[in-house]
């Protein structure tokens, strides 16, 4: 038997690490002497952390989308396209319902994002399963499709009126520092964080999760106990598409307020990196997404603080460089679902 830290031990280490980090954050923001130090303020200040959370949400949602698809065995690199399509759909729906009460209009936007994302997911599933297309090509096709269609159809004169605003959660929002960051957020942010928790629980502790993982690790084993592998793959890919669409909806309805061509700016790919770096686990992917989101926040803070020593463009590269280093450093230490990317065929069925 191999020597390894038990999963339980590893989890304890991670929780302790997170608590330590949290403690550091609180300290920096409460002790006036520490607050004065620019470097510490840039790295750990509330402004930086708020930005981090805002940047993390689309990445986390994208990573959840990736996990849903890949854990069942379908490689999905088209998250970027599904996100963009969801963003555009949310925008169009919002603009069309501009006259409605704000929350109803926003809700329609969210529904549109989910619907279009789900359709893209279903398309990817159909290409990959029914037509046995190479799944990486299928994902690429979806990205090109979304980029082209949204740019072509986008009406630059259309303006969406209003976006989601922050909702205070009573009591929890009063916690010093943490409350300001975590509990004064708009709804999709809460939804995304909740989704991470829900996905983790369902993936590892429910019937659906066990069967999903079996489909991605050893589909033949799943088939021999009566599980319909391809049905799970279709369903989960569609779900994954919906989550990616939601990420796009977040960008339009919560973050920016409007649509811009190509507004996803590579977030779909960074989500994939977060998924891999997080070893295909929801919490791991969230932590990785937070890391990448943090680099985006750092980039922003450095620019705002007037850091002119390093050219603006290099600072803008920061998130992408960290992504590359993180993923290439961890290749070989993470383990993808064993059967992902391979078409599953039940032989000999009439």
């Amino acid at each position, binding site marked *: *038997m*191999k020597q390894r830290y038990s999963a339980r031990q590893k989890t304890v280490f991670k929780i302790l690490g997170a608590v330590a980090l949290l403690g550091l954050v609180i300290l920096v923001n409460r002790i006036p002497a520490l607050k004065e130090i620019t470097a510490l303020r840039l790295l750990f200040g509330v402004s930086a952390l708020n930005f981090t959370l805002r940047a993390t949400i689309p990445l986390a949602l994208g990573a959840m989308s990736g996990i849903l698809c890949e854990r069942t065995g379908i490689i999905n690199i088209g998250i970027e396209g599904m996100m963009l399509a969801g963003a555009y759909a949310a925008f169009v729906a919002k603009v069309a319902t501009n006259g409605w009460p704000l929350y109803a209009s926003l809700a329609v936007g969210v529904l549109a994002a989910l619907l279009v994302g789900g359709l893209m997911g279903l398309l990817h599933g159909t290409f990959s399963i029914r037509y046995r297309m190479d799944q990486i090509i299928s994902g690429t096709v979806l990205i090109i499709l979304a980029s082209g269609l949204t740019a072509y159809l986008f009406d630059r004169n259309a303006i969406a009126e209003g976006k989601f605003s922050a909702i205070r959660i009573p009591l929890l929002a009063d916690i010093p520092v943490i409350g300001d960051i975590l509990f004064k957020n708009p709804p999709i942010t809460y939804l995304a964080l909740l989704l991470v928790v829900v996905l983790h*629980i369902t993936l590892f*502790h*429910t*019937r659906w999760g*066990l*069967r999903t*993982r*079996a489909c991605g*690790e*050893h589909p*033949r*084993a*799943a*088939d*021999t*106990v*009566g*599980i*319909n592998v391809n049905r799970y793959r279709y369903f989960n890919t569609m779900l994954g598409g919906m989550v990616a669409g939601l990420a796009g909806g977040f960008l339009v309805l919560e973050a920016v307020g409007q649509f811009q061509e190509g507004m996803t700016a590579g977030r779909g790919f960074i989500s994939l990196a977060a998924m891999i770096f997080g070893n295909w686990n929801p919490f791991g992917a969230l932590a990785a997404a937070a890391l990448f989101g943090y680099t985006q926040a750092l980039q922003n803070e450095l620019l705002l603080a007037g850091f002119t020593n390093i050219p603006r463009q290099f600072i803008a590269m920061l998130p992408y460089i960290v992504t590359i280093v993180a993923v290439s450093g961890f290749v070989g230490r993470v*383990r993808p679902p*064993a059967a992902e990317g391979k078409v599953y065929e*039940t*032989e*000999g*069925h*009439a």
Partner: protein
Amino acid sequence: MSDNRVPVLEVRNITKRFPGVVANQDISLTLHAGAILALLGENGAGKSTLMNIIYGLYHPTEGEILLNGKPAVMHSPKDAIALGIGMVHQHFQLVPVMTVAENIMLGSEVVKANGLLNVAQVAKDVSELSSRYQLNVDPYAMVEDLPVGMRQRVEIVKTLYRKANILILDEPTAVLTPQEIEGLFEVMNLLRKQGKSIIFISHKLKEVLRVADRIAVLRGGKVVGEADPQTSTQGSLAAMMVGREVILTVEKELAQPKAVVLEVHDISAKNDLGAAALNNISFDVRAGEIVGVAGVQGNGQTELVEVITGLRKANQGHITISGQDMTNASPRHITQTGLSCHIPEDRHTHGMIGSYSVADNLILNTYNQAPFARGISINRPAILENAKKLIERFDVRTPSAETYGANLSGGNQQKMVVAREFSRPINLLIAAQPTRGIDVGSIEFIHNQIVAKRDDGVAVLLVSSELDEIMALSDRIMVMYKGEIIGNVLRENATREGLGLLMAGVHAEPVPA
């Protein structure tokens, strides 16, 4: 045992057609409660197809299945499981990164009131089954950490967990040591006593005679006959399987070993995962003797052959062939200067090119020499001429010399590989699992060819996980365990039990070799 009880399982006139081939033709068999029915046949005879039909993975083209006298239609394994049929596949259907309990409950999960999986309950049920059937498994162990024999037990518990009454075991002994095989037979007897019925698929005559109540022999998709183990012999069964008389023992004279041809000294090497695969291995092989390397697959045999044939770097030690240093030499150098030849254990990946014709496969290592090559061009007529001669000499059954290698049966592919390797002068023959997965007739042929080479003065290193093959052919036997040689006995001093213990790592008293 009276035969007028209703059989627990009956297949009637089952036919299964795939495009271009009839896998099962008009098969009718019965299985009675508490009985072990052995299904004997070569690879490709249709045994697995028939079992997959019974288990619901395939649909029969014609015919019906009756359970306890009532017709049953199986649309998927779900139906078969619900009707009490369980199957342990030849290649285990276990998810390596999940625990035993998760694997066992997959598809039949037990859920708590709040919707979460009730792993504790499953673990309890598994422990209860473990003790009832003497199949000890740890519900919380990760499958990938388990040895092969234990994984098979998990597979059996998996079927019992789903209340299987009919168990189908597909080639269960292929990956077990002799002692583990005994353990399996004990489990089968216990299951039978508790009223379970078993279908035992195999191509190993000895085992079938030992454990079965009745034997059905399949050949070419049809049942060619049933046999009573009490009155059958290995010879009669082999004849039924192949359709003609088969000589099962290899006639050979005593070896006359001469000079040392292969000398392996202190070789260590790593495997693909970076772990130590070979640990200070030293031995030699003389001209005119067959040295057999026994051992369960995965103890370094593959890496040993790769190091000797130049396919893997040794990080220590040296290898000499006919006095010349061949440590870490290229395969071409070893083949052409060392006059060695290699029958690889994986003919599909290393022995032949499936998309090349038989003729091209036969010149895979001589294509750059005369007469097959003239300068930069290839001499096709010479290649075809060579193919014709070899096909006849080595009895390679193929429609033509241009047929793709992949379209030949396993036995004929292997004969093709043997033909290629034996068609040039050699001093050293390395044969790794030379008769794996091939028909009895071809086995007989290849064994005779190997012995003939030995008698010609070639030094032969035979690596095989089939103990019977090792014992039939070898003059001297070594056992490999965890990358080391832990036994070196003359054939006349070797016993099955002794070798079996060594294969499982139990060190025996050193016997003078």
